[in-house]
């Protein structure tokens, strides 16, 4: 039985690597098969295997984004940035990069990429900056921002749901690192752009606009505030996001189907499938030898660094979510045996930064490359992507290592 389940697990991961476009469905199917094989399974105890909080957070956030997008909240933000920069294109680019970072920390990374890359490409058109450079940096900032909060990207949502750490603790521990990497990378970029001194004439758009977007933006900020206070209020993030999205839907009064068909079901099914596969693995106690191996060093810095770098590198090939699910099962066990919770941060940093390594490491990389291809007919090859990302990824990895050393020594 053990061998059989391991076999299924391997095939499921082979699909994730080699057939990513159908992997959501294959993972789910293999997941169902593997828990069926264990026997005595019944859907009523599905919540014990699949974490519904994760699914609710994702669903609530996706619905919220869909409504915000509809009301032009993101267009407004980007317009304001361009206006604010008063024709200084380099400033505009850097501000957009910061906006990508900040928005991605609260919203889905793919959404921010889809909004801002076209604007960056437009700026590249009038300033002769390399399209690929701008695209790759936008992707990097989006992944980096996603890493900094509990709801920023799916791996963090999984870590949040499994670990029971609070929303604010993610911000305390991960945001500073995100900011340091952001600032260094912005400085690097600024030096690259130094040579360009282009001033564009911005034409004021005199279009009449309604201001409903502000209402929705404030609503969204209120949801974020509730999330920050979720421990005090005593509610799970899943409820806050879902109720928040529903209230917005109420105010808007549209039909549910049109909003919900924008939800990214692929991700939801992939996560469900991964939870099932890992649930099966846990049942056959395949992790026991690994846990025994790490148990003696569970409190040492070495383990945290191993987790950081191995998850960082693995993410490049398996993509972030599968790696997260794989590691989280082991880390949860170790933490319950007395290991420090910093192991969770090591994992979040590893998959968050590793998500930049290759074009397939996260959804945002695939979508970002596609936008470039659709708009400018340029393709980012695997090696191009890897070579331009290598430096910022190493930078992130080193700063994270420093953070872990700092945490363990104090």
């Amino acid at each position, binding site marked *: 039985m053990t061998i059989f389940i391991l076999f299924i697990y391997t095939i499921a991961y082979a699909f994730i690597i080699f057939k990513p476009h159908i992997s959501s469905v294959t993972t789910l*199917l293999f997941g169902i098969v593997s828990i069926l094989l264990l026997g005595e399974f019944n*859907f009523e105890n599905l919540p014990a295997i699949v974490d*519904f909080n994760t699914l609710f957070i994702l669903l609530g956030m996706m619905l919220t984004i869909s409504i915000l997008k509809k009301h032009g909240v993101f267009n407004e933000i980007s317009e304001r940035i361009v206006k604010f920069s008063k024709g200084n294109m380099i400033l505009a680019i850097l501000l957009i990069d910061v906006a990508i970072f900040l928005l991605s920390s609260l919203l889905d990374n793919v959404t921010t990429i889809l909004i801002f890359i076209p604007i960056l490409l437009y700026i590249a058109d009038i300033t002769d900056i390399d399209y690929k450079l701008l695209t790759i940096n936008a992707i990097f900032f989006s992944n980096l921002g996603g890493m900094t909060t509990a709801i920023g990207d799916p791996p963090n949502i999984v870590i949040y749901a499994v670990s029971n750490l609070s929303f604010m603790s993610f911000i305390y521990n991960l945001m500073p690192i995100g900011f340091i990497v952001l600032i260094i990378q912005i400085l690097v970029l600024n030096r690259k752009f130094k040579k360009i001194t282009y001033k564009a004439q911005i034409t004021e758009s005199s279009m009449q606009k309604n201001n409903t977007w502000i209402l929705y933006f404030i609503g969204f900020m209120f949801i974020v505030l509730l999330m920050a206070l979720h421990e005090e209020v005593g509610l799970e993030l899943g409820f806050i996001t879902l109720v928040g999205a529903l209230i917005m*839907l109420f105010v808007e009064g549209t039909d549910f*189907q049109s909003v919900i068909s924008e*939800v990214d*079901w692929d991700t939801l099914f992939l996560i469900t499938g991964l939870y099932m596969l890992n649930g099966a693995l846990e049942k056959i106690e395949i992790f026991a030898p690994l846990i025994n191996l790490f148990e003696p060093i569970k409190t040492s810095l070495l383990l945290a660094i191993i987790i950081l770098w191995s998850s960082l590198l693995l993410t490049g090939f398996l993509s972030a979510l599968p790696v997260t699910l794989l590691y989280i099962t082991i880390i949860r066990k170790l933490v319950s045996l007395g290991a420090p919770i910093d192991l969770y941060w090591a994992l979040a940093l590893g998959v968050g930064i590793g998500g930049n390594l290759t074009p397939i490491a996260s959804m945002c990389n695939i979508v970002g490359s596609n936008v470039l291809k659709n708009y400018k007919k340029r393709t980012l090859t695997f090696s191009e992507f890897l070579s331009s990302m290598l430096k910022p990824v190493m930078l992130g990895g080193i700063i994270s290592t420093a953070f872990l050393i700092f945490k363990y020594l104090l």
Partner: protein
Amino acid sequence: MLTKFIVLAVFAIVMYFVISGKINKTIVAMAGGLLLLLMGIFPNPYEGLQETIDINTLLFLVGMMIFVRVMEESGIFQYLAIRTVKVAGTKPANLLFALTFIVALVSSFIDNVTTVLIFIPVTFAITDILLINPTPFVIAEIFASNIGGTMTPIGDPPNILITSAAKIPFLEFALYMVPINLIILLLMDLAFILMSGKDFRKEVPREFIDSFDESKAIQNKGRFIASSIFLVTVIVLFLLQKQLNLESSIISLMAGFFSLLIFERKEIEPFLSKVEWEVIFFFLGLFIITGAMEKVGIMSDIATFLVNISKGSKVMLSSMIVWISGIVSGFIDNIPFAATMIPVIKQLPQINPDAFSNIQPFWYALSLGVCLGGNLTPVGASANVVGLSLLKKHKGIDVSFKDFIKFGSIAVAISLALSNVYMLLLLEIMK
């Protein structure tokens, strides 16, 4: 007492919006459900969710919706419709019988709305040539789809709820439900022919019937054959459910996702968004609301009330369930009604263990009532709404509420009376 009142008030408000349609019913149901969870009816919101939600039903629906959409693409159902017309021959009465029976058969496996969408266009093609009124045919097909849906656990959403809660295997349910519904269908067809006699005297020219070409429905022969095999396999799996010890949600999820992998590998994402998520989330909201009602004891109050007025008589209670649920479902959505009644029926043995230790027959009474009652009015079931809108869109015929009820009341009277008689028999069998 106060919590009971609050829960009941939430239920009433949600029902008001579901019936009046002023706000999207899914949003209202979800909001009501989440509100109850937040108010602390359950010790902890997540426990509340786990307690109330019937995951089996939700997953089953997701799987089936995907499966039916994928199967539809192969043209397999259109093919069946055209073959039926060809086999039935030239007499309109024969056509009516053939069409309604095949509609019932198809809708016992796929959802009623899809069935109506497939068969009504074929019907229009016939009535156009004959210059006869398509209305009786369309209404008969609507009724047939609702009757057909009653026959199996997967034919109609209330049945999915009922069989999932009562854990009745596919074959057992079908065994009790197919014969009675076929008889109801037969009687209803006869009543239709009597009521609109003149439309059934003309004869369809043979060459017209022959001009239908069923091979046109098939765009890709390989896919058609593969889909047919797949469909038959899934049906067999459902029939053998008990022997294989598989839950229906597992069969349906596997069917849905495997069919997606086999036939629509390139377009997985669009198919996933085509699932009627609105319905799934409506169920989710409803489960929480009815679960909360159960938790605070409203359901057992209703059950006690039913037990008291039936004075412990099984015959009386089952007749009441058939008629009340039939008539109520004629006017309001039968899904929330079934979801409300299920916990009530579950409570019966606790209230009067002597008379109601075996609640098995009452599940069938509920299913017959809620599913067949949907035929009463134009808004009784979604197949009615869709079928009538097709009639209006393509033929410009507007069937009024009164005209529909003329057919509906007869069909429902036949259905419920026969069901009531059948319940007497079932009560004997299931003693």
